[in-house]
């Protein structure tokens, strides 16, 4: 049983994007329902934060080797870059954030009881984007992205699922030690 709401929501969705272009992918899943029923969690990859520009929220776009056989590099980089752009938008210090800050201060920050901050609005957008990406791109390849907010904004966790029916299921355990002991 899977713990992720995205999977549960996807139970209700109808046919998703078929993996027509994935002829060379090791495991193919046509939608998340199939993923849920026939897959077991094999491994997790954690995309770390990129601190080169300071403490603003950015994630590294370096393509992890564990995903090499699962997804195209460009798709992955696109996802991470879009996420980075969203976070940059949320943390932008400019006219709007000053206005919000001054207005909030003058009301002793009580205004946040009724109003959503800009950051929270962007976080909702991010959650929607991640769900969309999972549905369209990652689930058909047997992957699942977890929203970074659930990991304390430290990492983007990508879960890799193996097809339970195939002989790969027992290699799930060896892939943990094998892939990382390089």
């Amino acid at each position, binding site marked *: *049983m*899977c*713990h*992720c*709401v995205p999977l*549960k929501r996807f139970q209700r969705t109808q046919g998703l994007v078929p993996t027509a272009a994935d002829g060379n992918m090791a495991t193919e899943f046509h939608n998340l329902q199939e993923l849920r029923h026939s897959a*077991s*969690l*094999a491994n*997790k*990859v*954690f995309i770390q*934060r990129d*601190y*080169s*520009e*300071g*403490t603003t929220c950015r994630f590294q776009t370096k393509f992890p080797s564990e995903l090499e056989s699962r997804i195209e590099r460009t798709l992955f980089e696109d996802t991470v870059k879009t996420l980075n752009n969203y976070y940059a938008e*949320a*943390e*932008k*210090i400019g006219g709007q*954030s*000053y206005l*919000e*800050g*001054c207005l*909030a*201060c003058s009301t*002793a*920050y009580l205004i*946040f009881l009724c109003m959503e*901050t*800009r*950051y*929270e609005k962007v*976080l*909702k957008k991010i*959650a929607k984007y991640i*769900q969309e990406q999972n549905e369209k791109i990652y689930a058909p390849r047997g992957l699942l992205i*977890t*929203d970074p*907010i*659930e*990991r*304390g*904004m*430290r*990492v983007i*966790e990508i*879960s890799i699922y193996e097809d*339970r029916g195939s002989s790969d299921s027992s290699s*799930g*355990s*060896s892939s*943990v*030690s094998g892939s*990382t*002991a*390089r």
Partner: protein
Amino acid sequence: MITRKVRKWEKLPGKNTFCCDGRVMMARQKGVFYLTLFLIVGTCSLFFAFECPYLAVHLSPAIPVFAALLFLFVIAMLLRTSFSDPGVLPRALPEEATFIEMEIEAANGNVPTGQRPPPRIRNVQINNQIVKLKYCYTCKIFRPPRASHCSICDNCVDRFDHHCPWVGNCVGKRNYRFFYMFTLSLSLLTIYIFTFDIIHVVMRKYPVSHLSNQKEQTCRRIVLVCFFTLWSVVGLTGFHTYLISLNQTTNEDIKGSWSGKNRVQNPYSHKNIIKNCCEVLCGPVYPSVLDRRGLMQEDSSVSATSAAPSSFSSSNPVSQTTKTTAPLIPNEHTPDDAKPSIAASAETSAPPKDEVPPAPKVPPLASPETDAEASIVKDKAH
């Protein structure tokens, strides 16, 4: 199978206390916070009771009105600072901790037995300066830049400034501006009351009517409290204004991270006082990454999943609180009810992570996202 819905704050590690069903988050020792409240409320009550009637009549009614507004602002800022999440970083879940451990071991290579492994430090380059990120053994993470572990609250806090006993909480990224506004407005309030105290005493001393002995003594007490508060609070406000203009934290100032010739220059400063102030005080209000009020299921046997609504930012509603797949060595962070279930899960499941060396002593973190794989593995095992 007894299932119980609990809020996530009940299972958070660390030494915080929570009130109002997770809405309020404070440190464990709150005695000094109550003292702060008592001093502020007490002094202001005396001011309103004994001096404002006279001042309103003889000077202006605006005086007590402005004092009341300022007083309310001070209390609001104090409560906001004390009750909010300072920017606590949640501890790493077991898989993340294991992943990091493996990266560290891969980086260290083979350490001969008997020799101490090198310290766990990661170097990152920020604005062309090398900053060292330290590994936190309690939280099992490499601390982000400017984060520090508060030993009183037993949490890593982002942009850690200091732990303030007067507000009964840590001061970090999320509540620094409230703390600063609190000290600033308290300074103004103290100066205000002090000034009008003096005016009141002077006015009473020289006019026709006599001042009752009791009232005069009360005035003097207020003056005394204000005098001492003034120096400490105004001094503190001045110090924090200095820190903000340089975009430094108290922690960095005390450790001397950016001072000295051999040290790195502060890579976070914009080299412009106005920009630094704007970033700290008018920057975005960061959301809490601790989902305190989310719901999770807790039971002591095989997993059952269900979707429980949690706060907007969490899309993982439910999982076992206490299940992990790695063979764990319980430590002091283990919640008591986790121990029997660890034994159960270790016996019944064939966790894929058995090959993980026991070196990572990962605590069975009571976080709801703990282990989908535990559930999946269990399904596989049955």
